């Protein structure tokens, strides 16, 4: 399959007359032209229902209902503070690590509620991998970075070397590092480090991969490589990505969920909520909600 970012990234920012024509942030027609056929209703691998997340007494996100389709890329977009990172961190129970965080509602993974009291969060994280905003390789060799997950999760592959190679090939990093597997991971460039982190996630053989703004610390070329990689990985994995970059969401995702933050009338606390969730080309060409349209056309956020 052809995987190339073909949507113009350069929004015509120069023409910034405030009363002028609507800024075209994303080239709608080209988005629609690149999209493949996906079912109307996602074949959900994961879903969340009536999800409320609190940090202490503060309600960060309320009543999120979403389902994430198998072998699809779902993008969560929205302005800062709209709770999209909070939501993605609920999906593999990383929010458990935040002191005072509390989750209400149901998050289903293959039908099981991962917040059920019999569910071990460790086991959840083994099935649902995560890639973070800043590349965070371990201060070890490239090889050991990849082998770490399989080792701690007690996987007994016939050959760890093969597993490492497969993971690195899966993340399109093998050719660049095959001669220096024993080198420290910190010797890699930022983009390579992020692909190493993706490879590290692949090695534990999850079926869902969460990506929390995986390209925000990378240059455009490294970003394009990660995007290519994501298009490639969706054939085997279900990918959920949080991104600040609307062009990125438009380029890579099959479906897009738009979040925004709304201030409480009495307390003034800003709580995130899901505004609209639909196919990406619909969100970017013909959104149902006015707020979505305002955001994607660059009027706020």
């Amino acid at each position, binding site marked *: 399959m052809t995987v190339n970012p073909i949507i113009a990234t350069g929004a015509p920012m120069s023409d910034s007359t405030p009363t002028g024509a609507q800024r075209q942030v994303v080239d709608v027609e080209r988005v629609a032209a690149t999209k493949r056929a996906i079912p109307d209703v996602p074949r959900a691998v994961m879903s969340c229902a009536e999800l409320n997340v609190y940090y202490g007494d503060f309600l960060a996100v309320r009543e999120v209902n979403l389902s994430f389709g198998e072998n699809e890329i779902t993008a969560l977009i929205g302005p800062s503070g709209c709770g999209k990172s909070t939501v993605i961190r609920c999906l593999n129970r990383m929010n458990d690590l935040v002191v005072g965080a509390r989750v209400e509602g149901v998050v289903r993974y293959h039908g099981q509620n991962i917040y059920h009291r019999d569910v071990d969060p*460790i086991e959840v*994280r083994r099935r649902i*991998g995560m890639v*973070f905003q800043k590349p965070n390789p371990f*201060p070890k060799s490239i090889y050991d970075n990849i082998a*770490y*997950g399989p080792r*701690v999760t007690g996987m007994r592959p016939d050959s760890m070397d093969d597993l490492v190679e497969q993971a690195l090939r899966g993340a399109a990093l093998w050719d660049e590092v095959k001669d220096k597997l024993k080198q420290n991971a910190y010797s890699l460039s930022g983009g390579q480090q992020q692909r190493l982190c993706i490879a590290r996630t692949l090695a534990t053989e999850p079926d869902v991969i969460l990506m929390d703004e995986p390209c925000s610390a990378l240059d455009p070329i490294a970003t394009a490589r990660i995007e290519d990689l994501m298009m490639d990985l969706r054939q085997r994995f279900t990918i959920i990505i949080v991104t600040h970059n609307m062009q990125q969401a438009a380029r890579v995702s099959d479906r897009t969920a738009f979040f925004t933050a709304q201030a409480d009338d009495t307390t003034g606390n800003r709580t995130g909520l899901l505004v609209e969730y639909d196919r990406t080309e619909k969100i970017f060409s013909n959104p149902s909600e006015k707020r979505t349209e305002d955001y994607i056309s660059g009027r706020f956020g």
Partner: protein
Amino acid sequence: MATLADRAGTQPLRRATGGERSSRAVLFLLALWLSLCTGLVFLVVLVAQTLVEGLPRLDANLVTNYTSLLYPEQAGFRAAILGTVWVIGCTALLAIPLGVAAAIYLEEFADNERWYTRLIEVNIQNLAAVPTIIYGLLTLGILGGLQLVLDFQNRNVVIGGALALALLILPVIIIATRESLRAVPAEIRAGSLALGATPWQTVWRQTLPAAIPGIATGTIIALSRAIGEAAPLLLLGAVVFIRYDPNGLLSGFTTMPVQIYNLVAQPQEELRTAAAAGIVALLALLLLMNGVAILIRNKFQRRW
């Protein structure tokens, strides 16, 4: 925009009032230098005097001989050196695992919001500032209890000295370990946990190894402090002439600083010379240990 550029280009870069070359700034700098020099001069004079005094006795006898009142010119530190090795070895065995484990608990597992965690933290900070002789008193109490169970008469035993010194350096080790654990970025922990590692695996395989250089540095500095310590050991009754090698946890002992303290108080000139030589040897050892600590820090220091 243009006007701003014009002004920036045409204004001469005059010396600002109160800048780094004003008389006040220079005076302040001089005062700082003076303070530094005062400290340094005292140190140099002290070391030089000790060196000159001890120089005639810096020989092999100093290490191989026991101390002696009959032949003061050949008195040595054999028992004290071996006693120091025994005591510091046991101190390290007691204090390092306990201190590192306590720090791991406090830093990685304890809920910092709880009042008892905070109480423990405040107490550890305070313990680091307690006069060392208090630790001697505490150890005397513990040994009194131990004597009910174990059969020993003298309280000047290796395990007693090690207990006192271990208590003494425990807060230092805990604080140093916590500092170096805290320096390991949260992303490393998050990355490990997101791969399905348990919190315990994360500590054992990621956080602790990354913190080892800092822990080693802190521990060596704590141990070198323990080596130079005399007060708590004096309280246990370590000021005795010992003319045998310590051979067990319940063996009597003396250490370098204690024996130096002892020799300095003797009337014979030769013994005081031996004490000076002992000080030089002890200083050299401490310098060596701190040097190793600095080497470890520089070699393994990581900027995240």
